[in-house]
């Protein structure tokens, strides 16, 4: 089952994680829907991949699939591979998966209050992972908890370990969740909208913290967000998702300098920016995000796309290379006018 030969494994410069043609289906009242369709990407060691898209685009489902944490029994991976250092997690036995979940991949969720147990002290929750996976006494586990809290910038951590989650502010709670995700020094951290519930000044603190921890510990990060600003400021590579599929993928500078999918362009144009003159009309993307139960045929963006042609209605475009690692799933990307920053 393990195919270490095909990838370079832990040591080389190959990807740490490689997702190939991932497909996920959900059973819903409206029948079986495909929430993620042929999604492929790779995460290199020590880098950050951002997954950006609007609600229902499949970004969170993709993340949950990596750890096989899809809600049961509705959700199911129906195709593709998730290779962590060459090992396919989709087919891995549960005991292997358990080790991966707790030792190699850490997860940070959007709302820290729901990720923490409200009736357990912080110290006990943090100690749990040390006790489970390392040969330590409860006292040592607590000491390590204090250390890791100090590392994520929580003042007087030796007092905080005795507190409950509700005694902390939102930003502090998210630091605790980050501490928890980092406690076993994972090679990869998956952060699903880690700062969406936080204020913008606190968000800046948390993003800065994640960046400096990454530099120190060398882990890779998959950052899921709806905010292109957060992507631009924190990621090395970007995956733009629309309605369960990859619209565009590539290095962050490339995507922002030469966005080639009409959806990526539409998103970039529609965000209000501080430099814009006030009260001018914003560019918009017509229509609305399709629900998973009524996805359009062909390119899933075609009914909102200003550049659609008949072919877009009929068949879905596959990813074409733009330049280097930059790829786009659009038939007409070559014909689109060169990208200029939205008029300020």
């Amino acid at each position, binding site marked *: 089952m393990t195919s270490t030969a095909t990838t370079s494994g832990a040591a080389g410069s190959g990807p740490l994680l490689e997702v190939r043609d991932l497909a996920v289906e959900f059973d819903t009242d409206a029948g079986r829907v495909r929430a993620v369709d042929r999604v492929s990407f790779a995460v290199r060691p020590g880098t950050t991949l951002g997954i950006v898209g609007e609600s229902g685009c499949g970004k969170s489902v993709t993340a949950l699939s990596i750890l096989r944490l899809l809600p049961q029994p509705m959700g199911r991976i129906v195709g593709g591979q998730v290779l962590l250092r060459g090992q396919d997690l989709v087919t891995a036995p549960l005991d292997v998966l358990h080790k991966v979940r707790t030792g190699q991949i850490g997860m940070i969720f959007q709302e820290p209050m729901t990720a923490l147990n409200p009736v357990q002290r912080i110290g006990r929750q943090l100690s749990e992972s040390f006790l489970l996976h390392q040969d330590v006494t409860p006292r040592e586990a607590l000491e390590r908890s204090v250390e890791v809290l100090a590392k994520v910038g929580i003042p007087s951590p030796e007092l905080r370990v005795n507190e409950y989650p509700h005694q902390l502010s939102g930003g502090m709670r998210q630091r605790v969740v980050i501490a928890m995700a980092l406690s076993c020094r994972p090679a990869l951290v998956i952060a699903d909208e880690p700062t969406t519930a936080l*204020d913008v000044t606190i968000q*800046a603190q948390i993003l800065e913290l994640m960046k400096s921890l990454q530099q120190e510990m060398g882990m890779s990060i998959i950052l899921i967000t709806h905010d292109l600003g957060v992507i631009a400021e924190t990621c090395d590579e970007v995956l733009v998702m629309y309605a369960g599929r990859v619209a565009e993928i590539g290095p962050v500078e490339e995507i922002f300098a030469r966005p080639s999918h009409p959806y990526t362009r539409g998103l*970039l144009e529609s965000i209000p920016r501080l430099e814009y003159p006030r009260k001018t009309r*914003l*560019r*918009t993307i017509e229509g609305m995000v399709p629900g998973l139960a009524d996805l359009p045929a062909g390119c899933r963006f075609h009914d*909102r796309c200003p550049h659609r042609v008949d072919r877009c209605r009929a068949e879905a475009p596959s990813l074409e290379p733009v330049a280097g690692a930059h790829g786009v799933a659009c038939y007409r990307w070559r014909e689109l006018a060169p990208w200029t920053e939205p008029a300020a």
Partner: protein
Amino acid sequence: MSAPLLEVRNLRTWFPVRGGVFLAARGHCKAVDDVSLSVWPGETLGLVGESGCGKSTLGKSIVRLVKPTAGQVLFDGTDLAALPMRSLKPYRREIQMIFQDPADSLNARLTVGTMLEEPFVIHGIGNEASRREKVLELLRIVGLPPAAIDRFPFEFSGGQRQRIGIARAIALNPKLIICDEPVSALDASIQSQILNLMLDLQERLRLSYLFIAHDLAVVKHVSDRIAIMYLGHVVESGDGEEVHHQPRHPYTRALISAIPQPVPRRRSYRQILSGEVPSPIDPPPGCPFQTRCPHVQAVCREQMPPLREVAGSGREAHAVACHFDL
């Protein structure tokens, strides 16, 4: 543009914090503390602040969904804060509200038609036929199909529901609309549609907006003037462009620099605040920003800096609540 349409003077909304056997008030949560601001006819005043700063409570205090503790809310010269509930009814036509989550603020059991007709019924306007005409016109104005009239809120997407919320707010030709985070629950591609609609309506119907949101980029885009709130106080106010280009308050500066911009590799000139936001329950004396301010001095811990005009006056004023000229 002579007199303000809405003038809030020294408004306080404090909530008692109760405890003990007899639930005596043991302290106060000072959600809105000594806030003054004005909205002129036809303009948008943007009110920005982070969660818990009191911006929503301020909006609710103006329309009396919450009773202010002290201060005045002058609307066209009448102090709404002093009026008994019964006398407020005519003013409810003039001031309307749009809420953040239209899924919560629309009655799930009413059709869109019934919901939009309700304001006319309550204020005894027109007959059944003319009211239906009005409802259809409202739907057209906000960009919804006539068929929406017989549907229920759950049949619409978030953006469409916000259009319904807007239709309800403009039904009675109000002068002022308090918009409380009207686009923050919406996806980016839908957000710009709704912002455009609100700008169009303002021009067409000569509306004034008090636009409350946490996102400075959104607020700056739709507003003529903006006010920055922190821990129950307005710390800076003025023309939107001026506050953006020449922010005077250290909090405004930090807020502007913290906004992630869709420009890669900008992060080098980020200003990161340290420290925590104090609780609005019995906040420390002195400046509300003292716990996070990079320029804090002894005087900041003792005296509350008043909101003082540093440039211009009246509608053109740029005011800041800081002891220093930074």
